Each structure stands twice: as structure tokens, then as C-alpha cells.
């Protein structure tokens, strides 16, 4: 069953085409990455998916039915623009949002307590939102999106502003939800953060889909043409080397891309001759790299 299906969806604001005839679908239980740089049209796409705006043309099916507001009770949404009622108590706020999603007050209260315990903020249930730190508010927002046990979860920039400990906590929750068969959509410009979580992706740029499909297939298509090298000594010779088509120095290590037809073994020999090699690893390209490759460095 398809949780959501976009068919030739288009949205313009005046002359500006925010989303240009975009089509993709997500199978139930899939984790989908909607990826692209800032201003690519990710949020515009999501807003149409949940009925905040209406597409100029094209069709959106939610839970295999044409979009209707009632279906939204089964959707959880964490918007990029985080916001809560600042003067409201955490519990009241969660119950209110739960009720809007069709829960009874009692059930919402119980679920809120459970989630707060799981995310280690149950001590703050009776505090006003404005008394909470940014990170805690993020967690509350996260709970608000999940409280009503939605079948389809949309997360716009979910890890933005979270420290590594909390990011891991949330990632574990997401993996757990995936195991329960929930459909999850991540939207982010930080592709490195979600590529480990996603089954399939859609890369968009300037409102157009530039690449989409199963993540493993996409990566396999690019082959293992990247090499990460850690060495001691002067590595300048790698920069203008016929075996290398791209070079990135990260300080502690360098990442290079093999030129067409070049052999990795040949490169290893060359490096070993001139320095002491601590690590030499052939890798799949990162999504970011694929993206930059597809749309050119200026757009990224």
C-alpha cells in the first residue's frame, strides 16, 4: 500500500515555480528522504502533502485516497519552523494537540506522560514551555508529532539544533517506529544526517526532482570510486595526480575520487611509496557528493 503518492504536483508563487511537476510515492513502512539544498522546494512540497496549501496542478493521494482533511489525524508533522504556545504548560499543550488529532483528553494525557518519560523530560510536564531549554522544546515538539500514534510521520529538519546525545535518542525512536511499520518522511538539507536511515530518496533542486529511487541502487550505480586516506607526511602530490579526479582535504584525512579508469591499487602503491599509510578505504560516494555531482557545485 502506498502511504503517499504525488503525481505531477506543481506549485507556483507568482512567477516563481516552487515545485515543478514533482512525482514520487512512499510504500507503507518505508523511510523516505526528501533531500535538497535550502530553497529547493522541500517545505512547499510537504505543505501540499498535508493540505496547508493546495497544488496548482497534479494530484496527491494520502493513504491511497485523494487528499482529505480527515486523513490528517493519522499524520504526524514536525515542521521546520518549530513553535509551541510559550505560556502553556507542557502537559496541557500536548493534550491540546492530541485532542486536535482526535484523541480523548485522557488518552492524550497518558500518552504524553509515556513519551515524556521515554525522552527523559517527564520532570517538566507541569512547567511552562518558555521555561524549557531549546533542546527540551524540540523534544516536546517531537512528542507532539508522535503522540497520536500516526501512521505517516513527516519530519522537516528533525535533527536541527540537537546535541549528539539527543540526536541519537531521537534516531533510536525513529528506528523503532520504522520497525512498527510506520512510514517516515525526512526532509533535510543535511543529507549526511539521514542517508543512513533512508530506504529511498528523492533529491530535489529548484523544484525539480534530480534523482530518485532506492538508495542502495543509486549508490551502487556510482560504484566504490571514493578513497579515504589517512597518512603521515606530505600529501600534496595527491592534489594534481592523474589518478585523482577530485580532492578534499579534511585535515586529519583526505578524500579523493578516482579518475575514470584509474585503479585503486595503483594509488595505494603511490601513497605508500611517499608516506606512511594508516588507513586506505574504498567507499561509496556520499549523497552529498552525488548531489553536487548532479547539479554542479554552485547550486549546492
Amino acid at each position, binding site marked *: 500500500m502506498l502511504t503517499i503518492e504525488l503525481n505531477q504536483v506543481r506549485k507556483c508563487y507568482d512567477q516563481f515555480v516552487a515545485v515543478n511537476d514533482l512525482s514520487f510515492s512512499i510504500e507503507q513502512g518505508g523511510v523516505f528522504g526528501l533531500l535538497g539544498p535550502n530553497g529547493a522546494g522541500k517545505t512547499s512540497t510537504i505543505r501540499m502533502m498535508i493540505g*496547508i496549501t493546495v497544488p496548482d496542478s497534479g494530484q496527491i493521494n494520502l493513504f491511497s485516497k485523494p487528499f482529505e482533511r480527515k486523513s490528517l489525524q493519522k499524520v504526524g*508533522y514536525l515542521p521546520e*519552523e518549530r513553535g*509551541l504556545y510559550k505560556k502553556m504548560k507542557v502537559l496541557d499543550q500536548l493534550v491540546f494537540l492530541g485532542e*486536535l488529532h482526535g484523541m480523548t483528553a485522557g488518552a492524550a494525557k497518558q500518552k504524553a506522560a509515556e513519551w515524556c518519560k521515554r525522552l527523559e523530560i517527564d520532570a517538566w510536564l507541569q512547567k511552562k514551555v518558555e521555561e524549557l531549554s531549546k533542546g527540551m522544546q524540540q523534544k516536546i*515538539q517531537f512528542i507532539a508529532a508522535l503522540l497520536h500514534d500516526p501512521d505517516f510521520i513527516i519530519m522537516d529538519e528533525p535533527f536541527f539544533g540537537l546535541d549528539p546525545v539527543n540526536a541519537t535518542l531521537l534516531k533510536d525512536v525513529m528506528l523503532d517506529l520504522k520497525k512498527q511499520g510506520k512510514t517516515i518522511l525526512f526532509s533535510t538539507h543535511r543529507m549526511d544526517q539521514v542517508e543512513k536511515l533512508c530506504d529511498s530518496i528523492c533529491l530535489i533542486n529548484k523544484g525539480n526532482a534530480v534523482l530518485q529511487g532506492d538508495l542502495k541502487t543509486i549508490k551502487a550505480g556510482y560504484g566504490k570510486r571514493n578513497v579515504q586516506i589517512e597518512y603521515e607526511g606530505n600529501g600534496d602530490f595527491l592534489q594534481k595526480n592523474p589518478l585523482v579526479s577530485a580532492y578534499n582535504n579534511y585535515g586529519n584525512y583526505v578524500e579523493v575520487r578516482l579518475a575514470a579508469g584509474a585503479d585503486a591499487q595503483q594509488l595505494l602503491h603511490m601513497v605508500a611509496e611517499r608516506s606512511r599509510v594508516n588507513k586506505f578505504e574504498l567507499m561509496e560516494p556520499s549523497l552529498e557528493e552525488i548531489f553536487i555531482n548532479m547539479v554542479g557545485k554552485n547550486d549546492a
Partner: protein
Amino acid sequence: MHNILIIARREYLERVRSRSFVIMTFFIPLLMFGVTVVPTMLANRGSSEVKHMVVVAADRDTAEMIRSRIEQEQEKPKEKTDSKLTQKRSLPAANFTVAVSTNTAESERAALTAKVKAKELDAFLWATPDAIKARKLDFVTNDVSSFIDNGVLGLTVNDALRRQALKNKGLKDDEIEASLESVEVAPQSPLGKGAPDPKVMYIATLGMVMVLYMTVLLYGINVMRSILEEKTSRIMEVMLSTASAKDLMAGKILGVGAVGLTQVGIWAATAGILSGGALVGVAALIKGVLSVKLLIYFGVYFLLGYVLYSTLCAAVGSMVNSEQEAQQMQFLVMMPMILSVIFIINIFQHPSSSLAIFGSLFPFTAPLVMFSRIAIQPDTPWWQIALSIGILVATIYGMVLLCGRIYRVGILMYGKKPSLPEIMKWIKYA
């Protein structure tokens, strides 16, 4: 509908529980009390110090007459306390000691002026025959701005001069007294005895119009602010992922309106309890004025006025990005309301003038103007009332559609204030 109620309930509870609601509920009556009652008390109290004045007239009789009238006027309040509900304005008791002088030379005037200037004397009245003939007496005093005291003094001096003139014609004291006894002209409605006391009706209507004005204004602005607050706290997107913009707007207007009714209810109840026993008397007094029909009209025009203005305010609240921008805009939105209050006394006096009829049909002024006309003029043509309500309802319907569209786009727009062409574009968006 379910969502509207949840949103309205949140709005209501959060507001009623807030500190500012409690403060406002108690502060506004205190403020009203402070603005109306305290200055009156202070003004009536006056100063207890004794002031000295001199009355200068060519003949001793005239001067003595003025002196005795002033002194009598000062003693009056003591004997007439129980006479009437309306307080008769009088000179503060025993304020002036009056001396008389018959020296009308210019040099005397200069000397007295110098004395007043040096504060050895508080005031003098220059009542020479020339001045009386010109009907303009100079009252030289350091307290030129004591309008009420000086006004009462003017009436008293007029009275004294009239008495003196009659006396000079040879009338006896009791004849003078009888001819100067004032008569009351009592307005009576042709509807007969059942008609309400026009004075009470006037005050009661003014009071109701003010309550109507204040609540619509206050709670309309509250809707605007609360939307602005939601916009700046960026909660709109979360809300919009379950509730439609229409539900959000309706819930908000409903919730804030209920808070308004609660507050007015608390004020009314408090006023009732505070006036306690007096309430029975007041109830009897306003019985003829506050008919059930009028209360129903009050409810109708309050609701229609509130919905119209809060819808406008919702649109404005969604357009702006800061408190300052909101303040500039709210003045524009509330302009028709403010204008109706400015013209309200005129409408009370001429409830059938073309201005009144126009104002009662124009939807943005209708709530105040039509209500005033119904209250003041019981035989206001029914078709005008029906037409005014009809136009108002139709306008509200149009405004809800129009403002709903602005609201829907506005709440997700951050950054600069939109221009008029931009707002026109928002309205056209699907």
C-alpha cells in the same frame, strides 16, 4: 466543528487563567472609578481655606445685594441635601468672605488689582454701573481657571442684579422671590406614563453604548494580538497540520469572544453586588428603560459587531509581524467605531437625521448607531432595523470569506509587511 471547539476552549481557558485577565478584570473598574468618581470628589471638596473678595459697586444697595446672595448661596447645600438626585452646583461652603466697597475710581481698581496680584486679596468683582450696563463685569482673581466656581459665581451675581433691578422697581421681597422661583421643563414622551424617564434613558443608553464600544474594541484587538503572538511563536504550522485555517480563525474568535462575555459578566455581577440594596432602587429606575427587547438588541449588535471587527482584526493580525505594525493598523481598523462614538451624542439628539440613518445602515458603524437609535427612539422603523441587521450579516459573511483568505496566507508569511497589491494576490490564491 470539533476542532473549532477545542481551539476555542484552549483560547478561553488560557486567557481566563492568565494573570493579565485577573488584573484587567479588577483594574478596569478601578480605573473607571478613578477617572469618574475621584476627580468629582476632589472637585466637590474644594479647599477649606477662607478666601476674601471685594465687591465694588457705585451704590451700597447693589453691592450688599451681591454680597448677601453669595453668602446665601454658600449656605444653601446644607439645607437642600435631601431635595434631588442631581446635585445642584453650588459654591463650596463658606469659601468667600465678602467685603463691599463703593469706591469706583480707576485708582481704586488699580489698587485692588495690585492687592490681588500681591495675594493680599483673593479676588474682586467690578460691578460699576457702566459695567452692568455693558452686561460684562470683570472678576479679577488668581483662580481664573476654577471654571465651576466662577460659573456658579456668575449665576449668583446675575441673580443678585436681577433682584436688585426688581427691588428698584418697587417690588417687595416675597414678590421678587416668587417671580424668580425657577420652573422645571419636564420632557414627556407622547407614549404617556409608561415611557421611561428620558434622563435615565439617556444615561443608560450611553452606558450600554460605551460597554458595547469598549468590549468590541478590546476583544477585537485581543484577537489581533493573539494571532500575532501565534505567528511570532511559529506554532501556526503545527496547528495547520491538523486544523484548517478557517477552524483556527473561528475557534479564536469564539474563544476570545467568550472571554469578553465572561469579563463583562463579572463586571455586571460585581456592580450588582457592590450596589447591593441600592440595586432594588436602580432596578425600579431603569425598569422602563431596559426592556427585554432592548437587551436582545444589545446582544444582537454586540455579537454582530464583535464578529465583524474581530474578523477584520484576525486578518490584520495575520498580516503584520510585530506589535508596532499591529498598532498602526488597529487604529485604521477601529476608525469607524471611534467615529461612531464621536457622533453618538448627535445621534442621541437627532435619531432620525440622515446622518443617523446612514450610520445605522453602514455596517461598520451600525452596531453602535443602530443600537443607540433603537434605545432612544422606540418607534424606529422596523424595516430600517431589519435592513441594518441584514446588511451587517451580509458584510460579515463577505468579510469572513475575504479575511479568511488573507488570514490563511498571512499566518505563514514572515518578513516585511505586505503591500496592498500583495494582499490582493493573497485573496486570489486558491
